[in-house]
């Protein structure tokens, strides 16, 4: 079974996003960038499927600027076999990315796509669902665990109020949630080895996909700031304030 994992290079999750002074977007110059955390979980899951003998080949793909190659190398260092880099300097919307990924999945003959449930930059949480629909594949969203069951895939999903298990016919798409696994750190020998793994260079035009944006960003602003309040001395004062000053209990 061939497994395809799309990954995105995003502002590191520990870095606070700063809005540009002209309100055109978020300032990404000279800040630390990393692989989207949910995508790391997807990479880890693919590598584990290969280690278990389930996946025959693992392919990582990223749609993004030249530096997205670093993110692909990170996935290769974690153990994936090879990469595809669809280079574009535009910040593509999920619909355009899903259309490109559909073509990549078809070209690679992928039978399983594992990807993050959302990217922590634009927070759409849409690319996985869109890709599944374009491929006419079933989806297991926000996976907590996966298990192959004959020719089908059982996915335990995180839902409001608990967990739900669905059974998907293959080929299928799974989006990852936090508890699926704990991603490994790449070892130095594996980082060295990853430098020799192949990365195929592509562009959106190679797939004949129209990537024109559908949304116009009119402005990006800071959220309304919340003022820090006061410190209370002890639990008694806290109860008193909540009851008599704020009136919320």
């Amino acid at each position: 079974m061939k497994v395809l994992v799309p990954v995105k290079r995003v502002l590191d999750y520990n870095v606070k996003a700063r809005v540009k002074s002209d309100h055109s977007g978020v300032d990404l110059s000279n800040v630390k960038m990393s692989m989207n955390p949910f995508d790391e979980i997807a990479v880890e899951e693919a590598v584990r499927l290969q280690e278990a003998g389930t996946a025959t080949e693992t392919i990582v793909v990223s749609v993004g600027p030249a530096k997205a190659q670093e993110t692909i190398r990170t996935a290769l260092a974690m153990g994936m076999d090879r990469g595809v880099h669809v280079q574009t300097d535009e910040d593509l919307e999920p619909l355009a990315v899903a259309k490109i990924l559909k073509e990549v999945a078809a070209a690679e003959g992928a039978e399983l796509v594992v990807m993050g449930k959302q990217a922590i930059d634009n927070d759409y949480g849409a690319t996985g669902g869109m890709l599944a629909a374009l491929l006419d594949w079933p989806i297991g969203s926000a996976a907590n665990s996966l298990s192959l069951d004959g020719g089908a895939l059982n996915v335990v999903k995180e839902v409001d109020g608990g967990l739900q298990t669905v059974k998907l016919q293959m080929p299928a798409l799974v989006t990852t949630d936090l508890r699926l696994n704990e991603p490994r750190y790449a070892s130095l020998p594996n980082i060295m080895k990853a430098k020799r793994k192949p990365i195929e260079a592509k562009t959106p035009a190679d797939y004949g996909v129209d990537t024109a944006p559908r949304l116009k960003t009119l402005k990006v602003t800071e959220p309304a700031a919340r003022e820090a309040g006061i410190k209370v001395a002890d639990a008694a004062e806290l109860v008193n304030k909540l009851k008599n000053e704020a009136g919320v209990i």
Partner: protein
Amino acid sequence: MAVLVVAEHNNAELKDATHKVVTAASQMGGDVDILVAGKGIKDVVAAAAKIDGVRAVIGVDHDSLERQLAEAMQIVVVNLMDGYDAVLSPDTTSHKNYMPRVAAKLDVQQISSVTGVESADTFIRPIYAGNAMATVQSTDSKKVVTVRTTAFAAAGEGGSASTSDVDAGVGALKSEYISEELSKSDRPELTAAKVVISGGRGMGSGENFKLLEGIADKLGAAMGASRAAVDAGFVPNDWQVGQTGKAVAPQLYIAVGISGAIQHLAGMKDSKVIAAINKDEDAPIFTVADYGLVADLFKALPEFEAELTKAGY
């Protein structure tokens, strides 16, 4: 202009999230209809018809909709979209599951988790965990929008919308529901609770979350957690408040042993009043808290509970 709102329900009861999405839909202008897709949904349809400002309620009853399988929901919604300019749903897990599928099938870009409606095609949505707010205008002919329900007031009752049944049109699917394990709790639901008390990594263990239970019982509070506490395996994932979990906006949010990482603040900073208990006086949580108590939580929590008892709770 007509807007379709997909109802949040559990086949027996209509959830308040629906009323909030109706408010967002009304702000776009035009007629608002509600889709109730489920199994055995007669009571839900009747409840939806009473929401103020709703023109019509469409009931779609089918086995595959009992658990709102993504493939089935996609088919039902897409089939209805000939008659609508926009479809709106709450941004809860059951709707996040199929709305991107609907958008892709309609060839439109989904607009996720909107917190403001400027006009029929322009919306405000948080990006970067709420550290920036983007105002976006859709150029698509149809809009597919999920709504951050904490940002909208609930539409009132008193309407009398017409109701009709529509065939699901769902054939063979490539996925099936197997089972569900829902945590049983007498406490209110996290996103609907008036008071929420959450624990973070500082709680030290899942066992220690018991220290929050007595307080939650007294205040009728829902219990939540930070991503760090979920990552550490202290509590289930569906307790998670933050960018990658749930967004809450209760009257009172009590953060215990939570440092206040960016991604946690994203999910709770719209709460009316925030109280924080943390032993680190430099913890970022204190920059958003109305009332901060710098103390060891293992000492402060029993005292807090005792003070509540004294105050008659």
